[in-house]
């Protein structure tokens, strides 16, 4: 990123206008559903179902944000469930991935390239393809309709990108550090724990954040298939509670959605630097 706009980056007025117009067009596409969703959450249900269409909510109010807790009493629980599942998933992923990434970053042995490729190949198969055997497997473990039914498969599909990210990060840590520790008589485990882990902490943080976001965003299919107990439902499935027998309570559904995404939005604003670097690691060769 350049620090000051050099001559080369000076735009003429019509260039500036077209750039801003382009950005406006692009962001309109990205943000339109959120704007519409927010306006819907402000409209009373009666006003929603009127034609012709009105963009702005007349006599809009935040009433839906109060009534949503009454219509679906379990909603707070769904948010808690989403958080709980994501935290456990993130913890398990880190426990598995930190040592494995270190091994991939430092040691080359016969088949290590192939093994890394195999890990990455896991990314190719979404959970949907493996649902049937996973269902049977969960049944055998006896964890259907528990948190674990959503945690266990969730972890597996977040491992590949986490390994890829952390391996890239760890490869940047100079090898001389390991060697120095080794010369001083430190064991492999000691080196990993006392030398590498502290230095790799920023990278581990990035992996933790992206894993958490990934887990929070993608809980749908396993929750839909492996869990039918209301009290364990995460947010994406729990929102279906607003789909009544007769009609969908759209304004409350949207209000609940906004309450549900608030954590994600907060995360974006505070950690966006980490997110971008996590997202694009490996995209660019050093």
């Amino acid at each position, binding site marked *: 990123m*350049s620090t000051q*706009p050099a001559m080369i980056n000076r735009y003429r007025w019509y260039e500036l206008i077209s*750039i*801003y117009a382009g*950005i406006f067009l*692009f*962001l309109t*596409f990205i943000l*339109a*559903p959120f704007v*519409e969703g927010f306006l819907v959450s402000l409209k009373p249900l009666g006003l*929603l*179902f009127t*034609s012709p*269409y*009105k963009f702005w909510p007349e006599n809009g109010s935040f009433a839906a944000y109060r009534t949503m807790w009454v219509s679906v009493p379990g909603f707070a629980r769904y948010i808690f469930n989403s958080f709980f599942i994501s935290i456990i998933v993130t913890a398990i992923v880190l*426990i*598995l991935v930190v*040592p*494995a990434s270190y*091994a*991939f970053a430092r*040691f*080359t042995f016969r088949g290590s390239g192939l*093994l890394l*490729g195999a890990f990455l190949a896991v990314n*190719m*198969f*979404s959970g949907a*393809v*493996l*649902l*049937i*055997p*996973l269902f*049977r*497997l969960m049944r055998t473990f006896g964890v259907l309709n528990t948190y674990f039914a959503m945690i266990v498969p969730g972890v*597996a599909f977040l491992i590949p990108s986490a390994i890829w990210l952390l391996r890239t990060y760890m490869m940047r840590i100079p090898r001389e550090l390991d060697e120095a520790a080794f010369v001083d008589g430190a064991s492999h485990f000691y080196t990993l724990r006392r030398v590498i882990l502290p230095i790799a902490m920023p990278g581990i943080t990035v992996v933790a954040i992206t894993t958490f976001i990934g887990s*929070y*965003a*993608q*809980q*749908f*299919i396993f929750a839909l298939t492996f869990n039918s107990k209301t009290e364990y439902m995460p*947010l994406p499935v729990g929102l279906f509670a607003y789909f009544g027998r007769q009609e969908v309570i*759209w304004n409350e559904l*949207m209000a609940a959605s906004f309450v*549900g*995404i608030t954590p*994600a*939005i907060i*995360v*974006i604003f505070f950690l*966006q630097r980490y*997110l971008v670097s996590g*997202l*694009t690691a490996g*995209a*660019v*060769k050093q």
Partner: protein
Amino acid sequence: MNVQRSTLIFAWILLLPAVLYVVVIVAYPLLDTFILSFTDASLKKTTNWVGWINYEKIFNTTFAEVIIRTFVWTFFSVAIKMIIGVFGACMLNAAVPGRALFRVLTMPPWIVPMAIGIFMWGWMYNGQFGMISGVLQNWGIIDGPIAFLARGSTAFWATIITDVWIGVPLVTLYMLAAMQAVPQDLYEAAWTDGAGRFYRFRRITLPLLIPSLITMSMLSLIATFNSFDIIWILTQGGPNGETTTMIIDTYRTAIGSKKYGEGAARAVLICIFLSIFCLAYFRVTSRLSAGESNR
């Protein structure tokens, strides 16, 4: 390179937990899917070996149509994602005031739980009360309300647009990172020689972006091919199966109708396609990196 025995053991100890986990949760189910596809497994207690019957059944039904539809759906979704993504990256790469904020505003579709974004689109597509139909009517572009999800042809495109929306942030930020990795002195040299902005983009940015563009399209292809949530929440594959892709069909057969065997045969077919994409991806990326080191 001579690897000491103790080092080798240490490496494997580190790898073992992750390897075991993936073997049990991914590799074993993959194998199980393959075996199941040759049986008539269902909710019944007994399971019989039936050979190729499940595969024969697939091709006696409309599944060939589903396969073609899946490819068309995936193709358009990936193509539009790449076009909008590169466009967005170009815009966000411009050194204008506010660009840091614009970058943050790109992220929400990717970061918000997918189901929530899809619900919002579901409302927007509503014919009577939704935004798209409403605004188009207010502007006089269409005469009457269009229920986008209730008609086959519009539902097909509606699901694509939603898929594009969810995928665009990733493509945009990835391409943006790639653009920023282009050495600045190339631009400065061209600028000194009097090359205009558009010329610089066409002759410097674009050629250097090709590897990232190919990599991202392949990754996007695999993710899009696997897309489930969007279609399931918006249309469940309807109306009249016009948005039924392979994944949706598999889910409906296996989980909906509890025909595990037939579902598994469909899943195996998906896996075969995915493996082909996967091989192509590794082929292309290794060739790209080989080309880079030759330079």
